[in-house]
């Protein structure tokens, strides 16, 4: 943790995740109109 910059997370999206992914994660709705299909949403199923 720096004096001037405090990093909240260190996840790097672009590391090891190129390609198509495993696809096991839950579906989400981009319109923000539908919560149902996204309950417990948008976490990586491998974690």
């Amino acid at each position, binding site marked *: 943790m*720096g*004096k*001037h*910059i*405090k*990093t*909240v*997370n*260190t*996840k*790097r*999206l*672009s*590391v090891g*995740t*190129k*390609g*198509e*992914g495993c*696809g*096991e*994660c*839950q*579906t*989400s*709705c*981009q*319109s*923000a*109109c*539908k*919560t*149902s*299909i*996204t*309950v*417990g*949403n*948008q*976490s*990586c*199923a491998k*974690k």
Partner: protein
Amino acid sequence: MIHRFIFDGVKIVLDVHSGAVHEVDDLAWALIEDYPRLKLPELVAKYEGRYDSGEIADALAEIERLMQEGLLYSPDPYPEGYNRTGESVLKALCLHLAHKCNLRCRYCFAGQGRFGGEDELMPASVGRAAVDFLIAGSGRRRRLEIDFFGGEPLLNFPVLNEIVDYGRSQGERAGKNLRFTLTTNALLLTEEVADYLEQNGISVILSIDGRPAVHNAMRSNSYTAVLDSIRRFLAGRKGYDYYLRGTFTRHNLDFSADVSHLADLGFERLSVEPVVASEEDDFALQLKDIPVVLDEYERLTRELLQRARNGRPVDFYHFKVDLSGGPCLARRLSGCGAGHEYLAVAPDGALYPCHQFVGRKDYRMGDVTSGDFNRELMGLFRRAHLYNKEQCPGCWAKFYCSGGCHANAQAFNGTIFQPYELGCVLTRKRLECALYLKVQEAVPAV
């Protein structure tokens, strides 16, 4: 690419391509803005009058260390664009069990549940065909989802039972794990239905808009009946997922009061979402409402932060962001998967790209009973990822919104390749609010 923003005096920097989030002080805030375009001596010269030279050197060292770690100014992973490889496989279906409803909500994008047609219930045979279609199209994917939607899906509860039983047995046979969710207006949640949902681990979304007058104005004066039903239902719920979800319109732009109302009633998992409506509707959000809505999201953020600090946190769905275990890059590119990974099934078995497309005749993709499927249209949706949309690759929120909603894009711009601007603005604001809350979580108030 970086995005810098200030929320209540807290300076936050998102490194777009790595997903790293930093809270910075005044000096780092200034240096991060200038670093890509000024040489080091120019940077030092610009700030040495205002800051101690040792401090400038320290801050620059921190910036350079983060760059080496890939957490600042990280490069676009797809500078030349992105071409999807492989085949599409299905992962989720939205089953419209009933194009019929026991409420007449004014803002219903489904046209009071009928999606532009007549009252219709899905027969069990169509439901079973949908299960078969999902499993057959799911390739090696193991976790599959079925969402029961409407209209009011509980008007067709016996068929819901049949589909769950059939899905479980066929899923087991095929080595698939089917999960079910239900979106309901709560009026038909009898003890029998509640027991069934509990025993079968079905996640439930319960529609309620917030304050009585707000709810009643849009949802057929049903506030009291709905609230009583939700309370009874949740009292017997042991732990399976639920959300209360409301809709805000331009008639309640002070919607943080509706979230507060629901939170004050003791509900902890809430979602209040912008209405989907045509521009002619009196309740549709308009571009001129944007500043008010953005302020309201800020007000809501402060309210949620205060509740968390008081030991009564509320899980507000649209401010959820997982910075450490969120979706992989591939998932962020594909977004909702409408039209190729996720499809909606109308009561007669017709397939559409998603629940919002149901009834738009040009977007009918096939039929689960005959097995007909328009793979060309599926390919179009598969190609409609953020790197193929002109506005998206340069947007700082691209890996969180994934290119926006195809249905809104098509409805407002006539093409799924041009995102719906109002949706973009609200998404960006919600993301800033969510990131601010994450920073506050990481750095508790003193």
